[in-house]
């Protein structure tokens, strides 16, 4: 069991995850889709390895960040509703 946890905010809601967790997983724990397609469909990670671009979200103000390739860090602001 991991001994350390870190807290990030997903759409303003705090989520506590073990250190080393990707943001994509934190978003999943928060029960949110990562992004919304042009036609309004909710999207989430498909490949998990940075290729499909379906896991994009706004991380610390940077749009289109691939959340499956980024690890959670303390006080990160993640927005999937921007």
């Amino acid at each position, binding site marked *: 069991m991991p001994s350390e946890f870190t807290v990030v905010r997903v759409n303003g809601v705090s989520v506590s995850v073990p250190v080393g967790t990707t943001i994509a997983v934190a978003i999943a724990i928060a029960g949110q889709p990562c992004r919304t397609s*042009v036609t309004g469909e909710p999207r989430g990670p498909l490949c998990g390895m940075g290729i499909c671009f379906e896991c994009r979200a706004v991380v610390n103000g940077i749009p*289109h960040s691939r959340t499956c390739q980024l690890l959670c860090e303390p006080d990160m602001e993640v927005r999937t509703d921007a």
Partner: protein
Amino acid sequence: MKKETYEVVIVGAGIVGAACADAFAERGLRVVVVDRDVVGGGATAAGMGHIVVMDDSEAQFALTHYSQRLWQDLRPELPDDVEYEQPGTIWVAADDEEMAEVRRKREYYRNRGVAVQVMDARELKQAEPNLRDGLAGGLLVPGDAVLYPPCAARFLITRAQQRGAKLRLGACVTQISEGCVRSNDGQEINGDIVVNAAGANAAELTAGIDIKKRKGHLVITDRYPGFLRHQLVELGYLKSAHSVSRDSVAFNVQPRRTGQILIGSSRQYGAEHKEVDQTMLANMVRRAQEYMPALGTMSAVRVWTGFRAATPDKLPLIGPCPGYKSVYLATGHEGLGITTSLGTARILVDQVVDSKPEIAVEPYLPSRAVKEFVHA
């Protein structure tokens, strides 16, 4: 050998060929459009789709202004996928010298009934907060629009087909002669008239017309809604685009309905291959970042190229081809073919059916530009 006969055979299903097909079909003529590829797959797919009034010359102004009005008239009929929007253009002035050009341009447009507004540095920054600090100002032309060219070409072709026109795709025309085109599948199509609307390839089909390929690059970004509000073009563009020999880049960015940003532009002569030229691309993106530094933080999703059909005097060739009785030209639109397609079609049809055009056709007649004509 199979033969077909029409009143009008149009070679090229780009936006110019499509607009011509639609306009001829509207007058009740039996039309066929032939293209080696798909509708709007050549220069049409590599154009930004900026519906812009230009002032390089009186003739260029007349054709772009007339054509923009035709697009405005057509707007209610355009399907949603054409993405017609009217963000307006801002001609961006970097320094006092370019501000002087802004004022000249204002007078020119005003005197010809085009609404414009001069912006000082503060107003420009307010209108486009992502432009860098220290620019001098700009000229807003609110009537300018943008659209998605391949879908606009498809709309025009579809409407032509509804009016009875035929479309032959996948047939590569290898020869245009008096009243006849031949394709590489051995087929001949006869027409009372033949229109060469083959864009940058037009000179390969009609010897003697002075059209050169002028390569361009485009970049499209991911979606960043709200980042950009107007089509922005640097006034330095006037200096670079007019240079007929040197390769050049200019800051030219366009907001798409999706929130994507289309980034241009580059101009190259003598580049025959469609591969992305990394040096030109880097120069183009660097130029864009000089005006909008935050573009450097964005993700590009695609880069592609195309070939403009450039004439020596920057005006298209619209009308009868000298040396022929039945061959007409509708090409040479360089970077303005999306805008001027509709005006081109109207004044070409007017010449063929002998009705009075709404603008003078003389500046665009191919006879002005002929060197020597060799019959195919």
